[in-house]
C-alpha cells in the first residue's frame, strides 16, 4: 500500500516536471518535443531510434529526411522508396493492429489522425509506447509534418529543409492554364474530387483547372450529366495499371466528350495518390502530361 503511494507521488512529480519543461521549453536535459495535431505535447527522452510509421506519406518523409534507417515497422501500403519494402510490415494500419505495432518495440509510433487511429494511439500509450498523431490530407500539411518528424528523429536540419521546400510549393499560387480536368475516383455512383483536396491543389499548380473546384469538400457524388455539362478537357484517373477505366466503353459515359474521345490522364497512384516529398515531381509530371497531350 505504502509503496503504491510513494510511486504515485513520484509519478506525480515526474508529470509535474514534464509539464514544467513543456511549458517553459528551456530545460536543456529534455529530449525532442513537438505538439501533435491532436494538441498533445509529445516529449521523447532522446531522438527516436525505433520508429513505426502507419501511413505511406510518413514513411516517405522519414526516408526523405534521412531517418529511414530508424524505421522498424511500416504498413502494407508503404511502397516507396523501394528500400522501405525491406522494413517489416505491421499490417494495413486501418485501423492499426496494436499488438503487431507494439511487438516491434518502437520508441515512437507515427499515426495518421482519424477516429479509429486515435483509439489505437491511446491503447499504445497505455502499453507505454509513445505515439504522435498527425493530419496529412493536404499539400499545406506536408511541411509541418516534415519539420516535426525531423525534430523527433534528431534530423532537425533535414526536416526543416524538406519543410521549406514543401511550404514553398504549397504557397505558390495556382497557375492559370487553358486546360481543364475532372478527377473521377469512382464511376457508379460517380465520385469526383473537389476543392480542399490534395489533387485539386496539384492540378492548380500544374496549370490545369479542376472543373469541380466549386465543390468545397475533398470529394463528392455528382451525376454523369454534371460532368458532361462541365465538359472537362481531360478525365484524370489514379491508376497503377495504366489501363483506361472500365466505364470508358459504357454508353452512358460516352455523353462526356472527354470520355468519348478517350482523353484520359492515367496518373500512377503511388505518385499522385498521397501528399509526399515527391509532390513537386507529381506537379511536374502532370504538367508534362498536359503539355504532351494535344
Amino acid at each position, binding site marked *: 500500500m505504502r509503496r503504491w503511494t510513494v510511486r504515485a507521488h513520484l509519478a506525480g512529480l515526474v508529470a509535474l516536471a514534464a509539464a514544467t519543461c513543456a511549458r517553459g521549453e528551456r530545460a536543456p536535459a529534455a529530449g525532442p518535443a513537438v505538439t501533435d495535431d491532436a494538441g498533445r505535447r509529445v516529449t521523447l527522452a532522446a531522438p527516436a531510434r525505433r520508429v513505426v510509421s502507419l501511413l505511406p506519406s510518413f514513411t516517405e518523409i522519414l526516408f526523405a529526411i534521412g531517418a529511414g534507417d530508424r524505421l522498424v515497422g511500416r504498413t*502494407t501500403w508503404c511502397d516507396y522508396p523501394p528500400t522501405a519494402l525491406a522494413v517489416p510490415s505491421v499490417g*494495413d494500419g486501418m485501423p492499426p493492429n496494436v499488438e503487431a505495432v507494439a511487438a516491434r518495440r518502437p520508441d515512437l509510433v507515427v499515426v495518421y489522425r482519424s477516429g479509429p487511429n486515435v483509439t489505437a494511439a491511446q491503447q499504445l500509450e497505455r502499453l507505454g509506447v509513445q505515439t504522435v498523431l498527425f493530419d496529412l490530407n493536404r499539400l499545406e500539411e506536408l511541411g509541418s509534418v516534415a519539420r516535426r518528424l525531423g525534430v523527433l528523429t534528431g534530423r532537425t536540419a533535414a526536416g526543416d529543409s524538406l519543410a521549406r521546400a514543401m511550404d514553398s510549393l504549397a504557397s505558390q499560387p495556382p497557375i492559370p492554364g487553358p486546360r481543364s480536368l475532372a478527377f473521377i*475516383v*469512382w*464511376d*457508379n*455512383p*460517380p*465520385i469526383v474530387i473537389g476543392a480542399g483536396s490534395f489533387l485539386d491543389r496539384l492540378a492548380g499548380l500544374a496549370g490545369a483547372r479542376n472543373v*469541380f473546384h*466549386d*465543390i468545397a469538400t475533398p470529394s*463528392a*457524388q*455528382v*451525376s*454523369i*450529366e*454534371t460532368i*458532361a*455539362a*462541365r465538359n472537362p478537357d481531360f478525365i484524370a484517373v489514379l491508376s497503377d495499371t495504366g489501363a483506361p477505366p*472500365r*466505364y470508358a*466503353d*459504357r*454508353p*452512358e459515359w*460516352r*455523353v462526356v466528350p472527354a470520355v468519348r474521345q478517350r482523353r484520359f490522364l492515367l496518373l500512377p*497512384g503511388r505518385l499522385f495518390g498521397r501528399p509526399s516529398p515527391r509532390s513537386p515531381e507529381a506537379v511536374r509530371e502532370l504538367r508534362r502530361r498536359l503539355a504532351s497531350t494535344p
Partner: protein
Amino acid sequence: MKYLVLAGAALATLAAALLLGPADLPLSDVPGSAIVWQLRLPRALLAFLVGGALGVAGTSLQALVRNPLADPFLLGLSGGAGLGAVAAIALHLPGPWALPLAAFVGAVGAMALVYRLGLVGGAELDPRILLLGGVAVGALAGAITTAIVSLAEATELRNAFLWLWGGFSGASWTTVLVMLAYAPLPLGVLVAAARPLDLLALGEEPAQYLGADVRRLKRVVYLAASLLTAAAVAVAGVIGFVGLVVPHVCRLLWGRLHRTLLPTAFLTGGVLLTAADTLARTVVAPRELPVGIVTALLGVPVFAFLLRRWTVS
C-alpha cells in the same frame, strides 16, 4: 379513376425527369440533346421500372409471408448481391458488366439458399423459416463480404459499398432494355397469382379449401418476386424503402385485392422512385444525393400521414 390519377402522375414525373437536371438546357434544345436522350431518358425509365418492380415484389412477398415488415431485400438478397459485387472487384473481373452480373448471381445464390432452407420442414415452403433463413443468409453473406473487404488489398473495394447503396448513375439504354426484356415474365407470373394471393390472406388452410394450390403458389410467388428483386439489384443496387412502403400505401388507399394492388403498386413505386431520383439529381446540384435517402425522406411523411388517418378512422 385511380388508374387515371396514377397514369397522370407517372407522365408528370417522367416529364419532370426529362426537363430537370443539373445541366441547364434551354427548352428548345431538349429534343435534340444527347444529355436528354442518353442520360435523362434511360435513367428516368430505369428508375420507373425498378420502382415498379420493387413495389410489386414487396406487395407479393408481404402477402406470401403474411408479415407487414417484409421487404424485397429482407430475404437475404441484398447481402448476396453485396457479396457478389465485392467478389467481382476483389477478383478483378474484367468488363463493364462484371459488377452487375456478379451482384445478380450473388442475389440469386442467396435466394436459392433461403429457398432451400424454407423447404427444410418438408415439401411445404414455411414463411416463418423463409424470414429467418433470409436474415441468417443475409448475415452470413454480410460477414463474408466484410472479411473480403478487410483482407483484400484492392483500394477500390470500399467503393463497392457506394454502388451497393443504390442509385441510377449506371442507367443506359442497355440496362433499360435488360429490364424491359426481363421484368415482364416475373411480373406476369405475380399478376396471374393475384386471386390466389387474396385467398392466402385468409390463411393457408382456408386458401387450400377454397381451391388455391397453396404449395405451388408459395414457391412460384417467392421465386418470381426474388428474381424481380435480383434484377433490380443488378441494375440499381439496393434501394430500400420502396418495396416496404409502397404496398402499404396502396393497400391504405385502394384496398386489399391483389388484382388492383399489384398494378397500382407498380405505378406508385415507379412514380415514387422516378420523382426521388429527379430530386436526388437536382436539389443539391452540382452534387448528387444517394437516391435511397430521398425515397425515405419523401415516403416516410406520406406513410406516417396515411397511417394516422387510417388508425384514426
